[in-house]
């Protein structure tokens, strides 16, 4: 009835103004602790030396854009996925292809290596995340052992095993993230809060507990508690889609790469952005970021075909790497930090050291 409608819109208005008030309070609380900039504190740190980083291996074999890659914990094997629907496992030392599987869909946007090294997970436009056990039996058809684990209502943008082969975390164009049991395919927890497609996720280093960070087309980076499904912190300073998020090795911070051509560092205990990595000359989006082992360097792949190496503490660019002939779409540092691998729309992957 009319009076009910009026009552409801008053409540809505009241709630909305309370929300605005809380947002203001959040900004105030964060600002109170903003006593200095990271790069100012870092002035006393020694400057970085000259870098000589070159392409040491080029992995050729994909028939179309490389969209995602991941390292095996053995620091040697790499899994990569492509727009052509193929997922390939490589030995990065020899550049040999060890396994290849053709997915029933094109645009395989996500792939991940299992901690044991015995399986890989992948998915994309099929809205699913599937797990393939890796076998060295030449007579076995890899595709036959495929197990569908996750089901979303839109494309799969990212996936990652947790600390074991038994659980997978996924991010999707349907705006949610989800945690799945690999064996049963059961949904263990879902994470709602992003206002648009979720494009990336990263799990906190195991010592720091059960959280992960996700980034999306709503320009937000959100930190989640895996057990409760609750968002514990959210950051909204980017001016466009966040394509990549990666935890700092200590777990106290994370970096993000965005279509707004910047990478940023957010400290979780200060609850704010503490650094922006940008240059006027960099106008193309950053698609993928990862830290070196000590956290001093941030490697970022861009849509202008380059990789920029940033001094995380001082905020300056340390180096720029050329080589790819199209957008860099994915980038990961190897588990022992001796090299990093980049994948590109030029159909190749490069290992740099």
């Amino acid at each position, binding site marked *: 009835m009319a009076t*009910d*409608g009026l009552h*409801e*819109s008053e*409540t*809505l208005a009241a*709630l909305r103004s*309370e*929300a605005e008030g*809380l*947002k203001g*309070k*959040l900004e105030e*609380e*964060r600002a109170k*602790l903003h*006593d*200095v*900039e*990271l790069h100012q*504190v870092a002035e006393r*740190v020694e400057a*970085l030396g000259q870098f*000589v*980083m070159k392409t*040491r*291996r080029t992995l050729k074999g994909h028939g179309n854009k490389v969209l995602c890659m991941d390292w095996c914990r053995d620091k040697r094997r790499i899994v990569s996925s492509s727009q052509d629907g193929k997922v390939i496992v490589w030995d*990065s*030392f020899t550049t040999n292809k060890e396994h290849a599987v053709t997915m029933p869909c094109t645009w395989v946007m996500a792939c991940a290596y299992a901690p044991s090294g015995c399986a890989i997970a992948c998915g994309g436009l099929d809205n699913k995340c599937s797990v393939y056990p890796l076998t060295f039996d030449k007579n076995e058809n890899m595709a036959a052992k495929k197990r569908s684990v996750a089901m979303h209502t839109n494309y799969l943008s990212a996936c990652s095993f947790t600390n074991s082969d038994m659980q997978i975390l996924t991010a999707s164009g349907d705006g949610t993230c989800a945690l799945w049991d690999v064996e049963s395919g059961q949904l263990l927890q879902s994470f709602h*809060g992003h206002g648009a497609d979720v494009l990336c996720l990263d799990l906190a280093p195991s010592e720091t507990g059960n959280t992960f960070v996700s980034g999306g087309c709503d320009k937000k980076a959100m930190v989640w508690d895996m057990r409760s499904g*609750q*968002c*514990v*912190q*959210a950051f909204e300073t980017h001016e466009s889609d966040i394509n990549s998020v990666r935890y*700092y*090795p*200590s777990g*106290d*911070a994370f970096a993000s790469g965005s279509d707004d051509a910047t990478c940023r560092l957010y*400290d979780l*205990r*200060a*609850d*704010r952005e*503490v650094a922006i990595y940008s240059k006027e000359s960099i106008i193309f989006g950053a698609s993928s970021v990862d830290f*070196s*082992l*000590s*956290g*001093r*360097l941030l490697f970022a792949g861009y849509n202008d075909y380059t990789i920029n190496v940033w001094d995380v*503490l001082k905020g300056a660019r340390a180096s720029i790497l050329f080589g790819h002939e199209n957008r860099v779409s994915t980038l990961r540092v190897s588990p*022992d*930090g*001796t*090299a*990093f691998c980049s994948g590109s729309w030029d159909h190749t992957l490069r*290992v740099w*050291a």
Partner: protein
Amino acid sequence: MSSKTTSTNNIAQARRTVQQLRLEASIERIKVSKASADLMSYCEEHARSDPLLIGIPTSENPFKDKKTCTIL
């Protein structure tokens, strides 16, 4: 009927937003100076074992070629 459901949904959504913001506003925070100092000390502690930062001998890096090329 449907407009009532929509407005109920809007209210539920607004309540969730307010609850979420209350949670986020109430967390414990530290100063940026302390957070920065901790990030820096982590870097310094681990710098020596960061191969991409300090470089490691060619003999220890499986990606760097050990043999030199000789032209015959």
